[in-house]
């Protein structure tokens, strides 16, 4: 694998983790129950740890996080979607953590560039996936209100799921097999939660793979503005 493709892949995975960690960090002080303050922060911290390893393998972590423009980020559009209500956050977690877990299991089993990182991260991500599945069950099979909200959230985010299965240069995985495994898993969880897999296209206004090409949704620019503002206000300063 060339250095360039390894960097491309590290940035794609690193940006996913960085951006989702940031979104989950926005929950601090707003979670529906104290246990979820702890859980969401825990997941955010795991993801931030992964992001730091990945970005550091591609360059200086802070330069990459704080000094790149929006179009240079290659995270999935799914992870940048605003938190919405708790159901939206859980649907986003279900879609992403299932994908990340299946992907990291495959990477950990291989001998590629990311086997080591994936082997460590897969344990954390297994917990993220379990957390998302448990909450999907509670919300889907809870009250009428929670069922309706969870269903709406799963449907709203469905169009951001297709791009998870676009090949990423530098990642040696069978994306078709990944998609099949992902659909089976999400379908099973949703059925148990008395929900169904959303219908309709799994990619929205942009072509699938848009996030990986640096095409993002509008809220992402605002998220970066907040994230990068202080760092950029003091060029060259150490913190």
């Amino acid at each position, binding site marked *: 694998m060339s250095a360039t493709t390894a960097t491309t892949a590290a940035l794609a995975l690193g940006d996913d983790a960085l951006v989702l960690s940031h979104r989950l960090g926005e929950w601090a002080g707003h979670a*529906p129950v*104290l246990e979820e303050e702890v859980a969401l922060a825990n997941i955010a911290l795991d993801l931030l740890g992964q992001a730091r390893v990945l970005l550091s393998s591609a360059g200086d972590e802070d330069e990459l996080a704080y000094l790149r423009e929006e179009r240079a980020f290659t995270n999935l559009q799914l992870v940048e979607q605003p938190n919405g209500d708790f159901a939206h956050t859980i649907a986003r977690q279900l879609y992403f953590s299932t994908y990340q877990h299946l992907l990291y299991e495959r990477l950990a089993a291989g001998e590629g560039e990311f086997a080591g990182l994936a082997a460590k991260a897969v344990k954390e991500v297994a917990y993220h996936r379990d957390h998302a599945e448990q909450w999907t069950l*509670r919300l889907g099979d809870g009250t009428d209100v929670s069922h309706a909200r969870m269903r709406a959230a799963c449907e709203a985010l469905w169009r951001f799921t297709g791009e998870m299965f676009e090949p990423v240069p530098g990642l040696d995985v069978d994306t078709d097999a990944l998609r099949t495994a992902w659909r089976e898993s999400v379908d099973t969880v949703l059925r148990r939660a008395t929900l169904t897999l959303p219908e309709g296209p799994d990619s929205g206004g942009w072509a699938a793979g848009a996030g990986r090409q640096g095409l993002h949704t509008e809220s992402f620019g605002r998220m970066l503005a907040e994230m990068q503002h202080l760092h950029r206000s003091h060029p060259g300063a150490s913190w």
Partner: protein
Amino acid sequence: MATAAAHQTDTAGEDTATGGYERAFDAAVAAEERVEPRDWMPDAYRATLVRQMAQHAHSEIIGMQPEANWITRAPSLRRKAILMAKVQDEAGHGLYLYSAAETLGTSRDELLDKLHSGRQKYSSIFNYPTLTWADVGAIGWLVDGAAITNQVPLCRCSYGPYARAMVRICKEESFHQRQGYELLLALSRGTPEQHAMAQDAVDRWWWPSLMMFGPPDDESAHSAQSMTWKIKRHSNDELRQRFVDICVPQAASLGLTLPDPELRWNEERQRHDFGPIDWAEFRAVLKGNGPCNEQRLSQRRRAHEDGAWVREAAAAYAAKRTGRAEGERA
């Protein structure tokens, strides 16, 4: 007090006069025995503990807000990880403390209701805003530093569950205090703008931190009884003095000044003298007129109200599962 007082409870039939229990309780506390949840205790002791532990728990969860205010703007990934971990710890402390309070027969829901309706308080320090990144450092160094000074003696509090929760909390708080100091040190040694940011934060947080020890000893409503019960070990003024003496050399190492022209070493007392505290400000903030009282409480209420449907869903799901499991057994 698993020994003497538990024995007293067992022999209650022989000595029904509360005076008997109370004498045994007082003797056990005086002998430094720990009071455990099933032991007999005076109603006022229980009420004092519930009030204090609830206020402490509420302070942890309200205290998440001023710091969470900077999570999304933390200027490096390392700082962001540290800050998120710290805010997460505070949620964890809230959990331990609500659980410890539950051992006295009050549920978390009940205590949260009292917080939300303003019937129970949280530490007034969190009614000040975090205006710059340096405030995160000042909170760690000064606010957590003051909290530790207050809380270390609570590890020897007469009530067992509270004392044990405090041991764990104090360990984490000392990490919080160190990260605050280290954050300020980086700023103080950084660019002139960063240094000014650090100084400004210390200027704003110093006096409110001194107020965290509560009113002066001669005006402290609950102190004397709490000292006898060994819930409290040192007076407000004593702890405040200890804190000032700790902070002065630390400020010098940080290259920052403390905003008190009367602060100086007193050779005779072997302690620092310091200027008068603005108790009118303290009382105003306590009464609800601080910069952020309304904001903090309304965010807390909103999070709770917005989360009601989630908690209801979790309860409904748990009930269905129990029902199904019973159905399968039948």
